[in-house]
């Protein structure tokens, strides 16, 4: 805990989210093709993701409040539509009525 689960927001936020586009280098930095299985070295890398997926909310911690910032813990570090979509409604409301 004591961190943000929204990428790019707060002083501490997830750096190694389970997301292909965020974790493999961009075509600018890596013009050569990266095959499907060639993503594994980025998946297992200890480096933070090169591309920040600003605003993405990840699965986050459970009852223990522990959050291993690690791609293989995909349930905790994956940003999904079904996490992020309902949040838009909440943020929209609270930004209009605070």
């Amino acid at each position, binding site marked *: *805990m004591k961190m943000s689960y929204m990428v790019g*927001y707060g002083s501490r936020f997830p750096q190694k989210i389970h997301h292909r586009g965020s974790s493999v280098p961009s075509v600018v930095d890596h013009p050569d093709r990266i095959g499907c299985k060639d993503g594994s070295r980025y998946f297992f890398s200890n480096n933070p993701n090169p591309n920040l997926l600003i605003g993405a909310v990840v699965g986050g911690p459970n009852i223990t409040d522990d959050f291993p910032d690690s791609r293989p813990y995909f349930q905790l570090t994956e940003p999904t539509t079904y996490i992020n979509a309902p949040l838009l409604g909440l943020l929209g409301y609270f930004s209009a009525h605070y």
Partner: protein
Amino acid sequence: MKNQVILRAGDTIHEFGWDNKHAGINVLVSKMVLMGKAEYFQSFKQNADEFICSLLPGISHPQVQYSQGGLLVKSGGSNMQHVTSLSFLLLTYSNYLSHANKVVPCGEFTASPALLRQVAKRQVTKLTNIPLF
């Protein structure tokens, strides 16, 4: 009412997410009841009321827990889906109640629309860990 049986909206009233929409159905249909337009849908509202009560901190409930850090926790993976989708329903229900000038009966106490909104807002603040509003 036949639809409630077909949709089985009374079965798993505490679920709302990728796999199950029941809590959402009950909340949505309750709007009609709260507007006084469909009294015969009262059972949907009873389900919604029970579901909303189960989300409130301080009320012990087998389906919903709060972590020490104050985050809402339900079983099943990817917990933040529960934080966002259940907070969304709290806020939605809060608005329906406000417009109808109603509260939710939760056993010995009643939950006001302001309380539901406050719980939802606190979860959003926990999620980002920065005071957004």
